């Protein structure tokens, strides 16, 4: 196994533990924003799309690369904006009752 693959595996396994630790603390009230926020984060694939897009070359490679970047960016931007809109609704408003800071 190559050194890069081992490093990758380390990162993968440790990220599983971090993910479990962080996400199990999210209350059920925020499960929808969690899903949507996580959704935005996997849009990071857009940098993968950038790195391979023109590598293949030719019309087919460019077309697929373009599509990959479009989908990835839509995922990132849409995901973060939707999550932001959702979270804005969870803000305390004056007169909404409940304890205030």
């Amino acid at each position, binding site marked *: 196994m190559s050194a890069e693959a081992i490093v990758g595996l380390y990162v993968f396994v440790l990220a599983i533990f971090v993910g479990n630790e962080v996400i199990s603390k999210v209350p059920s009230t925020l499960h929808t924003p969690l899903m949507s926020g996580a959704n935005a984060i996997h849009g*990071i694939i857009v940098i993968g799309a950038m790195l391979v897009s023109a590598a293949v070359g030719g019309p087919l490679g460019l077309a697929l690369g373009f599509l990959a970047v479009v989908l990835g960016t839509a995922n990132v931007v849409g995901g973060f904006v939707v999550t932001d809109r959702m979270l804005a609704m969870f803000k305390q408003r004056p007169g909404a009752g409940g304890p205030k800071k």
Partner: protein
Amino acid sequence: MDLHTLIPVIYLIAAITFVLGLKGLSGPKTAVNGNRIAAAGMLLAVAATFFDIEFQSYGVTGLVVTLAGIIVGGAAGFVGARLVKMTAMPQMVALFNGAGGGSAALVSILELMRSLGTDGRTMGQAGSSMLGLMIGAISFSGSAIAFGKLQGLITPRSFKYAGQQFVTSILFGGMLILAALLTLSVGGYVAVPQLLVLTAVAILALLFGIALVMPIGGADMPVVISLLNAFTGLAVAAAGFVLDNQLLIVAGTLVGASGTILTRLMSKAMNRSIANVLFGAFGSAPAAEVGMTGRVDDGRTVRATTAEDAATLLAYARNVIIVPGYGLAVAQAQHNVRELADLLESRGVNVVYAIHPVAGRMPGHMNVLLAEANVPYEKLMDMDAVNPEFPRADVALVIGANDVTNPAARSSKGSPIYGMPILDVDKAAQVIVIKRSMKPGFAGIDNDLYLDPKTQMLFGDAKEAVAKLVAGVKAS
């Protein structure tokens, strides 16, 4: 120091912002900033990638194609996310998830196309690429079907035909075998027409994604959406292995973990295994419908009530628990419900909301709907917290919820939902159920709650019925 050597450091910072973003979600107060920090990290990572040597070696063409893609995708994502109604959130999340899955599948395809001609690639990388391609493509087509079902373009009911499991198994098996063959061919063990096999794997994965989600009914959507979310995360992580990009591995794995945890929570809340949700959709057995007159075999009757009577009951209660379900989302009655609750509270009635984990069409669906109507989140109680409160409640007001309130889940061993944790609505002193008709819920079974002597049915659309209750409470 050269700018290029900074890129891995910037990727590390981005990975940290993603963890912080998820960590922020542990409370509503920190969540907004967390999300923005993660978004800033994402922007930083994408900007840094423009300075990557590999990226720059593609020259002007690569730059133009990428910039055009970012503008088109960014505009589509932004406009879609701004314009979508809050009630259409589940399908929007499915759509963006599918976009990410599709992008991950394309990245894997491109990577394979690049490597097939050269000798520089190992079987491990080819295998990772195949995984990324398959999982990404399944997530793409599966999310598209989930979107169609949630949007009402395809029947939200379970879609079944004879020999379905056989066809699905063939698609799955064929996809795996071809992917294995291609991986072996990269190692030089077998010779196959690689591009052809690659295309076939992609097509089979797309078909399998469709076959996987089509038989799943609307009420199981919280499980499916979380699962597809996890899939896309894993596809991104697989792409990270191929590209030796740790940021992709970290981000993909974090999402994979979040999707997996949510999927497990959702299936636990239905007391069903993930396999049972995916392959054993219930609701196929036709249920005996109880007519509006409500006379059933054992002589118990359904008691219909008027909005005025129900309003009086609510107005003079001390403790009221509101139980929202998908019917509330469909009728978009959340603002009326908030108005009713405010009105009752101004009369000194104590009002809380009981939220079942799988109420609605995505994890936390009811929470986000009620938050839209400015219901303070302290009033939203989850199942374990609220169940001991029902015996003390004077009135439980069930709005568009059905199966999650069915006492058969506790008592009747033969019931398909036996063992599913439910809200103990039947333990309240009085129960008012707002429902459009006596039609059974998604599980296709009758709800004993409706035949309980202390239950009154208020038939009608949730929004109109709640509006009438508001008028009734004002009058009393």
